[in-house]
């Protein structure tokens, strides 16, 4: 049942001979041009380190004020979460939930999952939930929208510049750092390699029992 020297393109289903590109090289599908793989040096170590950094940064990014605003002597500051609360109080519960999921909960779950997975792989510890974590992380990927949120902050600030004084807070700097870290994490996390390692751990564990 198991075939290891073939691969298939996920987007055009072309049957390919399995070629593992060297580190720094890219493999593209010859028929549809999809980027098939781009292996990264020390994928597991890097992902583990970046996940720890991201997890730590998540807290200042969420707990410290991002933007301070002053209009006619009245001051106010905004957090990621206070935006959700404000929408909720306006009666926009559905939108508030979407914003909460895409900008707070999913990024947190994503970083925790990648921390758990890369940690287990780094220490060679099998865990029967690894497979589930990997699948959840894979499906969550698209719904983590930190960089979109960053752009919204910029647009909102530009809109407010005319009528208010703005002050950028430490929360915003932490948020920018968090985006840099998650982007690097996406680049260094080689899913195929992770799956292979999980499979190995699983088989070894199965034989031991």
């Amino acid at each position, binding site marked *: 049942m198991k075939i290891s020297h073939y691969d298939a*393109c*996920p987007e055009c289903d072309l049957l390919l*001979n399995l070629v593992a590109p060297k580190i720094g090289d890219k493999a593209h599908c010859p028929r549809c041009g999809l980027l098939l793989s781009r292996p990264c040096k020390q994928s597991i170590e890097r992902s583990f380190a970046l996940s720890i950094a991201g997890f730590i940064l998540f807290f200042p990014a969420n707990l410290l004020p991002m933007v301070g605003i002053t209009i006619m002597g*009245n001051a106010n500051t*905004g957090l990621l979460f206070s935006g959700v609360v404000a929408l909720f109080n306006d009666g926009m519960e*559905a939108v508030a939930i979407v*914003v909460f999921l895409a900008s707070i909960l999913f990024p947190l779950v994503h970083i925790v999952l990648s921390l758990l997975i890369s940690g287990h792989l780094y220490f060679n510890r099998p865990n029967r939930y690894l497979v589930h974590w990997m699948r959840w992380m894979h*499906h969550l990927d698209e719904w983590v929208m930190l960089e979109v949120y960053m*752009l919204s902050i910029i647009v909102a600030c530009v809109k407010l510049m005319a009528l208010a004084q703005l002050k950028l807070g430490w929360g915003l700097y932490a948020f920018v750092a968090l985006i840099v870290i998650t982007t690097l994490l996406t680049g260094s996390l080689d899913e195929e390699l992770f*799956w292979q390692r999980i499979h190995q751990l699983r088989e070894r564990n199965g034989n031991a029992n």
Partner: protein
Amino acid sequence: MQTKANALSQGFIRCHDCGYLVKIVNQPLSCPRCDSHLHARHPHSLQRTTAFLLSSFLLYIPANIFPIMIVNQFGAGEPNTIAGGIIELIDSGMIPIGLLVLVASILVPSLKLIGISLLLLCVHFRWQVNARRWTTMYRVIAFVGRWSMLDIFMISILVDLVNFSGIQIIAGPAATAFAAVVILTMFAAENFDPRLLWDTQQDL
């Protein structure tokens, strides 16, 4: 490196979740590597994509005619539609930002709706096209979709920050509709299987 065959026609299924290639023997139900259900193509891809697409077409109308946010200044409310907000930005000289919002909130959602419709029609009517080009179009659609959330996040920031006794910004009914459009089109793109574009080409 290149063979000339579809994996499915050679009896292989690539796991949708972990990318493992499995030789089909007596229809195995789950992937040996990650336990998820195996299916050669997304199940009911066309039906599901059509359903999500039609719902987003419907919601696209209220999203554009109702105000997406209302600026209350000293008791007088000034409703802003999506297009109105962009015109205001451009009028006040913030042209790059205005164009950015124009792309994210108007061009991307509408081109996405048209693009997914074309992809569905192409597969349904078995149009003979340059499949590589159409796959690229699909990839672009799937990639840009999330950026339309820009307006929604911006509203959550503005509603939160501008909340004083003299001036207030509140979210309008179009916000819910617009968020729904963005999410439904993302679901539509996720459910569309680009491999169907290749399956319907005869001269491969």
